């Protein structure tokens, strides 16, 4: 099981446990981070689960699809470490991952 450290929009940080096979978006929501709206339900269509990923982990994530890239482009808050959390699959390799929930668009 991976421990994931999450910084919410208020700047508070706490850790949650990830379950293999679930997306980071689902893990965040199950962990009580309601500000992750995930309006499209997790299929890379809405950009309401936007997070910033700790740079050290960016390389360990599956590559970004064109859809995801396009959606992030539509966000006013895109940064180099931006990802949609619905597109990140949680695994033990992500143990210690730090993410920050991006501001709302």
């Amino acid at each position: 099981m991976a421990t994931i450290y999450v910084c919410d929009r208020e700047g508070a940080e706490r850790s949650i446990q990830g379950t293999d096979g679930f997306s980071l978006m689902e893990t965040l929501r199950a962990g009580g981070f309601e500000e992750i709206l995930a309006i499209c339900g997790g299929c890379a269509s809405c950009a309401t689960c936007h997070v910033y990923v700790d740079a050290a982990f960016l390389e360990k994530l599956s590559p970004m699809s064109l859809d995801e890239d396009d959606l992030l482009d539509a966000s006013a808050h895109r940064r180099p470490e931006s990802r949609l959390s619905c597109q990140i699959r949680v695994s033990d390799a992500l143990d210690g991952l730090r993410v920050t929930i991006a501001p709302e668009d």
Partner: protein
Amino acid sequence: MTLDTLEPVRLNVPTDDVDLFCDDILRYPYEAYARLREKGPVVFLTRHNIFALPRYAPVRTVLEDHETYISGKGVGLSKFGNQSRRGTPIASDPPLHTKRRGLVAERLSLRSVREITPDLQRQADVLVGTVAEQGEFDGVADFSRRFPLMVMADLIGLPQDGREHLLEWADAGFNLFGPPNERVAKSEERFPEVRDYIRSLEQPGRLRPGSMGAAIYEAAARGEIEFDQCGPLIMAYLMAGLDTTINAISAALLLFGRHPDQWDLVRENPRLIAMALNEVIRLESPIQNLRRVVTREHELEGAILEEGVSVLVMFGSANRDESRWQDADRFDVKRNPVGHLAFGMGIHNCAGQTLARAEAASLLEALARRARRIEVGEPEWHLNNVIRGLERLPVRLVA
């Protein structure tokens, strides 16, 4: 031991003889779905010769594994229907699927939809204003059927003449996803009209310059798609954008009419609308069932599925699975049902969902501004082989 217990060896799963596409079930499907969920994660439907997946988890597994469960051999249950959709994104696999879907992806992207959203909101406000003045109206004919038809026909760039038939053709097109039944037979009869209409679009100047339809023909001129595929692709996108959105809007009227406390919540906090729409289509998923074909023998939740067998992806049932959703049959706009499958999941997820959301949200926002109550009468269901939706819904808006 009776003879009834003797079954072919491959059937190591429960069976059921329900006809999921008969009138009674189409009207009230949820008891049958609950029975299938109770029986198991994989249930062989003897009448349709297909392995049904009524629970949430296996549906999701199948949708996310497009290599084991392919669409290219047809996502419907009749041969004619499957042939008629050949090469369209919904019925193809990568790499063809990627190419075909890519042709219109930009026009359905979040960015493009944001550009037209102010227009949608203006048009929604006009429509809501009209029905509000009428007082009593048919929530389907006067409301939910109006909006997506206008939006989609304009987006695709279709000429004004002929638009009056589009809804009937879309209905027929969706019926063709069903098994060979009377509804399929009747829908097949409409096919020549649709083919003639498609051909008429090929003449220069018929599609509005700059429209999505025109862009598809331009892609053909560049050699990115075969010319004779343009018409079917345009019709596929048109259809996909009609009954689905229309019935999501009808279902929203029905559910908010029946649950005034939930309408109060939305009026107090319009930011709930996006989530509420997810809850509407979780409960009344516009597309109920589609097929996939298995490419290799494997085990799914204890069932051995051989290469070539068909599975039925039961979106509407998965979205009411008690093991996934607490109090699954309850309409709760605060639920935020992340992970619902009404738009599908994986590479075939609804390409137009951002647009559909913007349309439905524009209407609900306008309604929330004007109507304190949505009063509804007895609904009449419209029976279609795969689309769940209403034929008629008496509505009265209370200011």
